[in-house]
């Protein structure tokens, strides 16, 4: 009798669970399969991105805009496929391969951003008269803006709006992973103005000990502006800045530069001067035909490295 009770009890339990059997979810995902679809219009570009970004650098290159991934306070538009292609080639040449060459090929796959998002327009704030050109989030994602407006034959425009932004945002990614020294923020704490920085001219910012007016908004922006400007701006620009900054301003900027330089060397084993030299060398040679076929050179370089 006891065993009958046991059998009945077990049977009841089995029936109880079996009753829920038809509630099981199907194995099908509601999300689009991440495997690159060979039938799509952008297949060739997607395959290229997979080969030159995702596979070697562990980074997703997002050029098809998802409105949910943008700041809803701003009106923006997507990047054109043509400009996304150009930027992707340019970033390989002036950013990714620079770190491969100067720091080593293992650096970016580990510490580089996991997502690069492109947006066609900038984020304009007409009330405060500011324009956002890029932003970095959580140490893993960089968004580059205003890509549709790249002036490919205007080095100053590219330098200010694209190259500097790349290195600016990447420096954010680095300090979001390893904090920058606290003493940096103590150099010119009274000069930071997060509300009205845009009303300062560059010269005014220099005299306050900051390398740009945006750098004078807050310490973390100042920190990455020192690095980004030093990397992309030519010698004459840097020398002129120190001169125009006056003795006091120049001393403050040099003090900040020392901290940036030491931080990169100690925390990341990166030589700021080597990085700068490599970027400057490459910027001086903006041969678009070469840049757009740079992937082929990389392929060769990687094959040689394997051998």
């Amino acid at each position, binding site marked *: 009798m006891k065993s009958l*009770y046991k059998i009945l009890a077990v049977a009841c339990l089995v029936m109880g669970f079996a009753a*829920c059997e038809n509630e099981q979810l199907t194995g099908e995902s509601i999300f689009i399969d991440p495997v690159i679809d060979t039938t799509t219009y952008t297949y060739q570009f997607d395959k290229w991105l997979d080969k030159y970004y995702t596979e070697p650098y562990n980074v997703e290159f997002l050029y098809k805009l998802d409105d949910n991934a943008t700041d809803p306070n701003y009106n923006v538009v997507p990047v*054109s496929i043509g400009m996304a292609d150009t930027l992707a080639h340019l970033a390989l040449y002036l950013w990714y391969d620079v770190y491969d060459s100067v720091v080593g090929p293992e650096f970016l796959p580990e510490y580089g951003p996991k997502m690069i998002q492109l947006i066609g327009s900038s*984020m304009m704030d007409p009330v405060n008269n500011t324009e956002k050109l890029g932003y970095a989030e959580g140490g893993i994602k960089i968004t580059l803006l205003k890509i549709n407006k790249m002036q490919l034959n205007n080095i100053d425009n590219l330098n200010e709006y694209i190259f500097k932004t790349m290195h600016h945002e990447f420096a954010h990614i680095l300090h979001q992973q390893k904090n920058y020294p606290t003493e940096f923020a103590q150099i010119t704490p009274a000069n930071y103005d997060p509300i009205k920085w845009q009303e300062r001219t560059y010269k005014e910012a220099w005299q306050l000990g900051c390398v740009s007016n945006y750098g004078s908004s807050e310490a973390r922006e100042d920190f990455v502006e020192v690095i980004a400007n030093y990397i992309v701006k030519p010698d004459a620009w840097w020398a002129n800045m120190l001169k125009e900054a006056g003795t006091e301003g120049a001393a403050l900027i040099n003090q900040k530069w020392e901290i940036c330089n030491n931080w990169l060397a100690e925390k990341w084993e990166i030589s700021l001067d080597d990085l700068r030299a490599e970027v400057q060398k490459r910027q001086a040679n903006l041969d678009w035909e070469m840049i757009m076929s740079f992937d082929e050179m990389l392929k060769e370089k990687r094959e040689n490295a394997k051998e």
Partner: protein
Amino acid sequence: MKAKYLVIIGLLAATFAACSRDEESLFDKPAAIRAQEAIDNAFDVLTSAENGWEMAYFPNLEASAKGYNMVLKFNKNGNVSVTAKNSATTANKILTDTASTWAVKSDYGPILTFDTYNDVFHAFSDPKDNGAGFLGDYEFLILKATPELVILKGKKHSAYTIMRPMKNTDLPAYFAACEKMQTNLFGNNNIVTLTQGNEKMYLYKGADGQFQSAAYGSPLVAEEATYHPVCSTEDGIIVSTGFGEDVHDHIFLYDSINGELKSEAGAVMNAGNLNVLFGAYFTDNALGWAVDSEGQETVDALIAAVNTAMNNTSAKMKVMGYGYKQSLNMYEGGYFLLVNFTYKQGKKNQEKKLVWTIDLTQDENGVTVANAVPYDSNTETFLGQIPSAQAVADMMLGSFKAVPLQGYLFNAAAGMKLVGEKELVIRGANNIKM
């Protein structure tokens, strides 16, 4: 032992209770499956239109908003081609961009996204230098997707966008037809009457791509006006927002026979009671009606009569057929009839202007013009010489009903007919001087 029975009974109860979730579901399928089906349906609908889609695109709901025509072809490989012609973004040239992508994705519902930049399409959502531009969207909630009609709503700026399958494969002809509709319907400042159910209202100022609505019979009060951006199409108009409360008619098709625009739900836009409009045109605009000599059987006879009379005088004038104009005008102090004609005296072309005062009354049932009395000494002198010329003025007298004129049915100011014993074609005019 009793405890054991209780346990068994309890377990049995639990067993059957476990099935209680098999109650009839509100939906026949799980949410994820339904979401995917909605996406698949929208994809199939959008890619099924053989000639692509006509899009009536309304960037936003701001007071300055207008509607724009675009033609879109969605390809199954995720590529989209967009064509437009307008003065705002394409310098009035037909412009096509075929190098961008689209997708239907899931968010709060199926979303149509134009996720890479298209020169033609994103010209309306590009923030430009002021951070706003035309305030258009590039992601849209798909509210309805059938092979006959797609209704979208901008995700950020909330304006409706309407798409219908293209019938015309000739794009230049399509855009020309849309522009012609625009001109015919909205060429002049005009008052349009909208009737939907028991509700009636006035619509004002179609010329800048918008209706502004006001209570029926009331003049427009700018501060109280609501804005309804309009997009002209080949076969009528599409409005981004419905008129009145709880009315969401977007598409009004043009009925050229009756001079009306009608929505599927039965709302009707027309020029309203033309008898009233006839008089309102004087008072609202301080302008006149020019009487068109074309098609007036009586005109030739009148000219002949005046010529006969003139030939009987010593002046020996000859009225020329062209340049013959009459107009009804209102100036300070009353209504006037002006007759302006050129004539030949000897070898010289001369111009003559005769002016009569008239009595003009009009109500919803008709228009009456009576008592043409010479206004000035010039007219009196002329009539003294040629008494039969009074017939030129008397021709305008009578009781009429104002009816739409074929070809300008909706735009009454551009042309209507006064039909009584005689039939006069009249057109709104503002260049007639006393």
